């Protein structure tokens, strides 16, 4: 099997963001960056297939500035075989432009599976994976939380509102990974050492034309500071009163 996994380098979200002076981006000073969570589960899914069949090759692709090499190396340390950086000065917001560059790289690569995260934590469009699948003319199944492969056929579970969908598809295919499929492994020390020697190619990204751009970023209005109205069950009448008269939800 030959598997490609597309991963995005995103900021750690456990911070209070500041807007950069240019006004349409966050200030990156002091931010930590790591692999997007959903994408780490996509890497894990590929590695679990490789665990069962050591002939499997897992290729990591990330579009971004040279800083993505660190993120790619992490996936290599987890156990992937080689990496490709599609180099741009900065990652654009336009998902279709990113998809064009990824599709150009993946086309003709002979991959049986191309895996994506369901969504990136920063741009949060949940779009790039399915776009790449369409551009390559491959079957696409999005947001899967369970995967089984039997020969050239796969079956997957998708979480939908209030239920699940069970889907069948032929390989080669593009899948986007939701939470619940697995828990990503941590790179072991041995893996970290080995990753340093694994091939990592750098190529300019062939971004498509961009028609979507961020013109402004701002911090959403803070919710008014929380208010504790009381302690224990004796505070319930006041709560119900406020829900009726002030919040008008009862």
């Amino acid at each position, binding site marked *: 099997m030959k598997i490609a996994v597309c991963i995005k380098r995103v900021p750690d*979200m456990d911070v209070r*963001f500041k*807007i950069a002076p240019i006004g349409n981006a*966050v200030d990156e000073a002091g931010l930590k960056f790591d692999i997007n969570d*959903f994408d780490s589960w996509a890497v894990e899914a590929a590695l679990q297939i490789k665990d069962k069949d050591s002939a499997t090759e897992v290729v990591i692709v990330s579009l971004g500035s040279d800083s993505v090499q660190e993120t790619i190396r992490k996936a290599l340390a987890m156990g992937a075989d080689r990496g490709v950086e599609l180099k741009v000065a900065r990652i654009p*917001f336009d998902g279709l432009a990113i998809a064009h560059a990824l599709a150009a790289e993946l086309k003709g690569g002979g991959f049986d599976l191309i895996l994506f995260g369901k969504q990136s*934590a*920063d*741009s*949060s*469009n*949940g*779009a790039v994976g*399915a*776009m*790449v699948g*369409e*551009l390559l003319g491959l*079957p*696409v199944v*999005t*947001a899967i*939380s369970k995967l089984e492969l039997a020969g050239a056929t796969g*079956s997957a579970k998708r979480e*939908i*509102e*209030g*239920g699940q*969908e*069970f889907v*069948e*598809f032929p390989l080669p295919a593009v899948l986007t990974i939701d*939470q619940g499929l697995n828990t990503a492994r941590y790179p072991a020390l041995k893996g970290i050492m080995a990753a340093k020697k694994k091939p990592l190619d750098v190529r300019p990204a062939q971004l498509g034309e961009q*028609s*979507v*751009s*961020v*013109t402004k*970023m*701002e*911090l*959403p209005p803070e*919710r008014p*500071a*929380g*208010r*504790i*109205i*009381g*302690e*224990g*069950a004796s*505070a*319930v009448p006041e*709560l*119900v009163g406020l*829900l009726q008269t002030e*919040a008008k*939800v*009862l």
Partner: protein
Amino acid sequence: MANVFAFAETRNGELRKIGLEAVTAARKIADETGGKVDAFIAGAPGVGAHAEQLAKYGADTVIVVEHAGLEKYNPEALAATVAERIRGGAYRIAIFPTSALGSDLAPRVAAKLGVGLVTDVTAVNLDGDAVIVQHPVNIGKVMATVKMTSQPALIGIRPNMFTPVENPRAGAVERAEPVGDPSASRVVVKEVKLGSSAKLDLGEAPVIVSGGRGLKGPENFKLLEDLAAAFGNAAIGATRVVTDEGWRPHSDQIGQTGRLVSPQLYVAVGISGAIQHLAGMRTSRTIVAINKDKEAPIFKIADYGIVGDLFEIVPVLTAAVKEAKSRG
């Protein structure tokens, strides 16, 4: 003049509320410029019966595609059919829901048409030839204003942001055929399992009663079910701890890696308020928190907090809500 396409999502032959929200959002944009709204509805034979309702909410024309092969979600057939309709329609904007179905469909259509897509949109405006949308980024901690210049611009709207408003139009029905053969799709939905049909969907429920680790076990969610029943229009949500433990299904999880919700009222019970949880519910209109730890971060964003033991407070609250409801 801005003509707008609205995808009216159905499930099991029923029109979903997010479908009416798409038509409502489309109507608002079209009215600003004297444009028209085409609503698109597809499904098994009979689904066209919803055309009247789409007209009531503002569709000038309802495009109806009925085919046995569209009874369940058929991503390839639907994407091909929708893309062709949009290609032929000279639309400024095409609106999809940001739902499990819409999030799968819209990127396919965008790639087929070679046009821009922004999902999870909370507001839409026109600016000359451009479409300007609001879209939360960085797990909702930052709001981005995004400019879209493709014709059309595809957007996915966030559920519960565009309250359906009646605005009756002619709703002329135009029947169409699917593009290609729906039974030839490579990706096939074999089975759909739904929770009880009486259950309100999290994305649509006006009230969400949500439980965390503080509930201590699956059996205690009965407390929340009783409270939800007292409200009458409530769905049950949960934190990731709860769904990982298997106390509730994964589909109930709210947060960064779960559902994004913005109900009128969110009642957080035994939930600490981790950022990943807040990312999914912080836009709720009113937030109530019940937690025994007065330092719990959830109290920082709760409009009304009660400090104390949920096992003591929730039954009393359930009784009080019941009484308030019965008084009207």
